[in-house]
């Protein structure tokens, strides 16, 4: 079919990069996780590395930790982001300054965001100083540990700070393009503001909310910088554990790292599939 | 200028929803003589536009040939074919001024700035848009956009002009003036034109030759008067509005119908007879064979829906639609007698498909998809 050929011709540069570098970059990791690493003399595929990692005392806590912070931060981002979008829409200022300001976190990278959270939530951070000034605590020790803690609050804070504006932007666009006549029809039929939102607006928002949630979840699940810089030492987020195993001086240790990389990739690919599913739903809704 | 011929054009598209490909055009053949306007009439759908795209080269037919002046142009790429298509929404380039839009084709050909400017000026005066030369498409009205689109098409001196329902997005009054404008332009330039539309009145008024496209097939072509008065099938007849059908029997060279008898040059048998609303006359008659069900005021005429009492005689039709003058206006429920010149009854084979095409529109009355079927 001529149009199929034309399409693939247009896609060639992109597919070359994604095929060779993305897939081609994952392939060695995949093979190494099974112990196939000829460069250091390992040529026997084996499941032993998988068994050791899965059976180890760090894997499950790390996995659960990563899943937990990803879930909490993404859910929070979507909820508060939607709220922010609603506020921007209702005050009619979404386009201008407020919108631009709300977009600043998008420009700031995770590393800097970590610094911001540290400045704010650390034991001697701004929040602690404010609490001290208003008399709630009397010394830094009175401040609960919000960063480097086992709950990963610091990491969640970083992801929330980055995620809320992002979710707000997505929701804002959907809301703005939503046919206002739908809302008006509902209220004319007797729906209260809350009911109109719950039964008309929310269902239409759901595809975008779901896709954004999945996107944020996926991204924060596999992200490295925030948990590396501001996460607890136990349990470590899965990407951090994988990284530590990677930089181990003994190269025959590499497969341990690769097992974790494969697990991360596998879960991420599942989320990619889920995300594309929700994206299709979004398109159908619009 | 050229003579356009389509031979046996067939095209189907694979549909994402269904598994089988959808046949959009089926063995369509037609000829547009040099300098004439051919109107292709058909319900809204993709067949008509597909045909135009095949003529200009944007689509390739699965079967068949396209010939300009007797030479096949199938192998000639779009940009060199010389058949220009004007879309329904004018499709002006939003980032170029009116002048630049018109000169676009010349620029693509490498014409000098001077020539571009000159031809653009010529075209602008031809379509009476000189004052808008420097404006952007976003700043002019729908009718003006169409004029610019026509000018842009004519600027490249095409061999064939293709118009895809060019005025259907305009309001009624503007549409009328634009059509007159287009007809005058076509007469002046003598350009061979293929125009597609779903409006039968426009098709009758604007065409030198009229063709009826339904379900991918060309039902009938001919001069507008011929196609209107002598439709080749009920389906062809239904293109022009609601028609009245009833049983007719021919025996020994005579037809007998609910309206009477007349000599008929047809073999013995049962037929489907057809009369147009304007071919039936009504008279108030207490003992008449019909009664008025409803009356629709159409401005210059009134359309009555008549319930015949002779349906019990196996007529099979529950209503007749009759167009009458405003004099002697009948009331609902009034009994009437229906008469017609039986030699004007058009005969079709008895098993003909009587269903109307999905959309028949008229600017007078709403002859829309009424189920005039029992």
């Amino acid at each position: 079919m001529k149009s199929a050929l034309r399409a693939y011709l247009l896609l060639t540069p992109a597919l070359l990069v994604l095929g060779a570098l993305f897939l081609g970059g994952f392939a060695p990791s995949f093979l190494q996780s099974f112990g196939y690493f000829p460069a250091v003399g390992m040529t026997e595929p084996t499941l032993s590395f998988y068994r050791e990692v899965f059976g180890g005392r760090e894997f499950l806590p790390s996995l659960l930790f990563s899943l937990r912070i990803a879930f909490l931060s993404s859910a929070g981002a979507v909820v508060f982001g939607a709220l922010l979008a609603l506020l921007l829409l209702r005050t009619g200022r979404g386009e201008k300054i407020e919108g631009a300001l709300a977009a600043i976190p998008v420009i700031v990278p995770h590393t800097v965001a970590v610094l911001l959270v540290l400045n704010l939530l650390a034991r001697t951070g701004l929040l602690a100083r404010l609490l001290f000034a208003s008399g709630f605590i009397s010394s830094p020790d009175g401040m609960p540990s919000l960063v480097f803690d086992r709950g990963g609050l610091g990491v969640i804070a970083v992801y929330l700070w980055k995620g809320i504006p992002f979710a707000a932007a997505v929701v804002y666009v959907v809301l703005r393009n939503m046919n206002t006549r739908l809302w008006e029809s509902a209220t004319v039929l007797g729906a209260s503001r809350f009911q109109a939102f719950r039964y008309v607006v929310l269902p239409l928002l759901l595809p975008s909310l779901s896709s954004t949630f999945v996107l944020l979840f996926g991204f924060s699940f596999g992200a490295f910088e925030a948990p590396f810089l501001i996460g607890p030492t136990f349990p470590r987020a899965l990407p951090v554990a994988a990284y530590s195993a990677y930089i181990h001086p003994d190269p025959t240790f590499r497969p341990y790292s690769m097992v974790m990389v494969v697990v991360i990739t596998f879960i991420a690919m599942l989320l990619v599939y889920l995300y594309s599913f929700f994206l299709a739903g979004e398109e159908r809704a619009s | 200028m050229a003579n356009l011929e389509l031979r046996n054009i067939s095209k189907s598209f694979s549909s994402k929803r269904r598994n089988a490909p959808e046949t959009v055009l089926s063995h369509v053949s037609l000829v547009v003589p040099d300098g004439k306007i051919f109107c292709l009439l058909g319900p809204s759908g993709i067949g008509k536009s597909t045909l135009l795209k095949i003529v200009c080269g944007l689509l390739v037919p699965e079967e068949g040939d396209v010939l300009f002046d007797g030479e096949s142009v199938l192998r000639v790429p779009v940009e060199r074919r010389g058949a220009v298509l004007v879309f329904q929404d004018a499709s002006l380039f939003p980032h170029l001024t009116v002048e630049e839009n018109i000169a676009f084709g010349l620029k693509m050909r490498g014409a000098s700035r001077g020539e571009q400017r000159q031809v653009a000026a010529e075209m602008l005066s031809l379509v009476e848009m000189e004052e808008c030369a420097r404006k952007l498409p976003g700043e002019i009205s729908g009718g003006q956009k169409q004029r610019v689109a026509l000018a842009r098409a004519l600027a490249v001196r095409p061999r064939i002009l293709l118009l895809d329902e060019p005025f259907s997005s305009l309001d009624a009054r503007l549409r009328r003036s634009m059509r007159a404008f287009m007809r005058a332009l076509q007469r002046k330039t003598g350009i061979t034109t293929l125009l597609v539309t779903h409006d039968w009145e426009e098709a009758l008024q604007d065409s030198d030759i009229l063709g009826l496209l339904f379900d991918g097939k060309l039902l009938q072509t001919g001069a507008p008067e011929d196609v209107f008065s002598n439709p080749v099938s009920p389906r062809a007849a239904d293109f022009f509005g609601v028609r009245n059908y009833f049983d007719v029997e021919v025996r020994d060279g005579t037809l007998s119908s609910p309206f009477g008898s007349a000599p008929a040059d047809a073999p013995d048998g049962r037929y489907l007879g057809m009369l147009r609303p304007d071919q039936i006359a009504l008279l108030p008659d207490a003992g008449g064979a019909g009664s008025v069900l409803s009356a629709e005021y159409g401005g210059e005429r009134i359309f009555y829906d008549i319930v015949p009492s002779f349906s019990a005689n196996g007529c099979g039709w529950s209503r007749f639609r009759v167009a009458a003058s405003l004099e002697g206006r009948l009331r609902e429920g009034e009994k009437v007698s229906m008469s017609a010149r039986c030699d004007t009854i058009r005969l079709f084979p008895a098993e003909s498909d009587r269903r109307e095409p999905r959309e028949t529109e008229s600017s007078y009355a709403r002859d829309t998809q009424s189920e005039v079927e029992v």
Partner: protein
Amino acid sequence: MKTHSPFAPLLLFAFLTLLLLPVLVLLIWSVARSWPWPSLLPAAYSAAEWKSLFSASSRLVPVLLQSVLLAGGVTLLSLAASVPAAKALGLLSFPGKSVVEMLVLAPVIVPPLSYAPGMHLLFLRLGIADSFAGVLLAHLVPCLPYGIRILTNVFRALGDRLEMQARVLGASPAQAFLHVTLPLIAPGMASAGGLLFIVSLSQYLLTFFLGGGRIVTLSMVLLPLVKDGERAAAAVWSTLFIAVSLLFCLLMERAAKRCASSRDTFFLS
């Protein structure tokens, strides 16, 4: 849906303050010499960190240069690959489209950790490991999805009608693209460009794995500073990072506006 109650603007103000206060604090840290507990404002200010940044011995110039060249190059290459890909995905239908769409989507969620080590091995074999070119190529992976996603929407909104119109008027495919399509997608390209620049600039692990320490970008400098708790230095470099990103975004927005309003200049007038 606009409301006149004072509640909403207040809430909005609170929200925005929460989001932007940290940035303000950061800026203050960059000029704070000493900010001990429990003061709410620094005890002493100093421009020492900034002076050190702009001093001759600082790494500023090489790092900035490498970062901007890298991100700029990635942006250009990404756009070049994204435009045709977006056209295919936005306007054409073809077998395998959903698989391609998912592949294009994947790097947004799948972290660099998944493919960076393997890419390094690949590049070793190709001889471009630890090189600028290698890192440039590597950055394309996380950037392409964003470029393609944005431009696909642009193409979808544009439709193919105008290009078809150009073709029937006598434009070859190349002419139609150059004179009709390109001017009309230019604003979208500019917006995408801004985002691509930031995505590339923010990369750490990729540059780490594939740069071998030879390619030092702003991110490479920043992370160790934050890890080691060098508050003021980190604040200074962070401010620099944000400034560079903002500048580039503003430039792109300016370019986008210019593209949207101007007309084809090599035309009649």
